[in-house]
């Protein structure tokens, strides 16, 4: 099982949890463009949500995603190192495209948060990735 975490407000987390899961990769953006973002550390996801409390729908919580190993491995994942991650963010900043850009080449982009190679994030961007997150091969738990 691959376990990932997304910090958010309780109302949104409950909706995303479902069933059926309602994670939408076409809403939201970030350093690597439009998509749904996760990270490996529950603690860090909660820290981030705590500091955003005033902008969240409901109190800060964490959505835990336990994804079937084989199903996650079947996704097309594109890996960015720290420099390439920063380069992509700079380009998206220049074009004001963080909320619209998708690569179209893969299901998930994995790379560092703010160029920090010790803190890795995943951006799920394709319909296949969304279907996996919302389907029965992923256990979604609000914590």
């Amino acid at each position, binding site marked *: 099982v691959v376990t990932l975490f997304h*910090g*958010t*407000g*309780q109302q*949104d987390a409950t909706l995303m949890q479902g069933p059926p899961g309602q994670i939408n990769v076409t*809403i*939201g*953006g*970030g*350093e690597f463009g439009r998509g749904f*973002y996760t*990270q490996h*550390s*529950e*603690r*860090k996801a*909660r*820290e*981030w949500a*705590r*500091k*955003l*409390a*005033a*902008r*969240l*729908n*409901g*109190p*800060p*919580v964490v959505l835990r995603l336990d994804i079937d190993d084989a199903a996650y491995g079947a996704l097309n994942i594109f890996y960015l190192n720290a420099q390439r991650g920063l380069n992509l963010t700079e380009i998206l*900043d220049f074009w004001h495209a*963080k*909320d619209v850009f998708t690569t179209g080449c893969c299901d998930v982009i994995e790379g560092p*948060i*703010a*160029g*920090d190679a010790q*803190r890795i*994030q995943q951006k799920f961007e394709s319909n296949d990735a969304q279907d996996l997150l919302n389907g029965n091969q992923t256990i979604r738990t609000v*914590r």
Partner: protein
Amino acid sequence: MMHTVHYLTLVTLNSDKGWAAPVELPPDQPQGGVLVVPVSNELSFFAQYRLDWSLYRGAGRYDKSHGTMQLLSNGWLKVLVDGQSVKFGKRLIDNQPRCFRYVGTLTHSDFASPLCEIEAEDESILDDLYDRKGIVVEGCDPASEYGGLNQFLASPAGQKKIR
């Protein structure tokens, strides 16, 4: 007034690279932050800092707590978090500390100083505190400590919810 540990995000705003609070950033900014402390213009630690943390009680409920970080003679900052000793030092990348000015729009007396990222000497202690006790070491609370937040939250940018 005692200096405080903050949780900020490294961003580039209007061509200025520096720290800003996650709560004041657009939804498409980095979804992470780090602990930072104000330092002298020579980038030296001050003698003490207040460190805030919370205990997660489940269902979105948290209890706040705090302690005092003391500067040790060997240059580390030491604090007791729920009885557990944790030491912090400046985070170095290529032997350089990550020190920048605050570039956001909120106010706090610490934002007049350079701010340097700190990290625990042993991150597994923080993971263990979280796993066993639900403790989130998080720095000060923007809602009660930062000026200008209410005005920002009333603005169109501040009303954009983050999912």
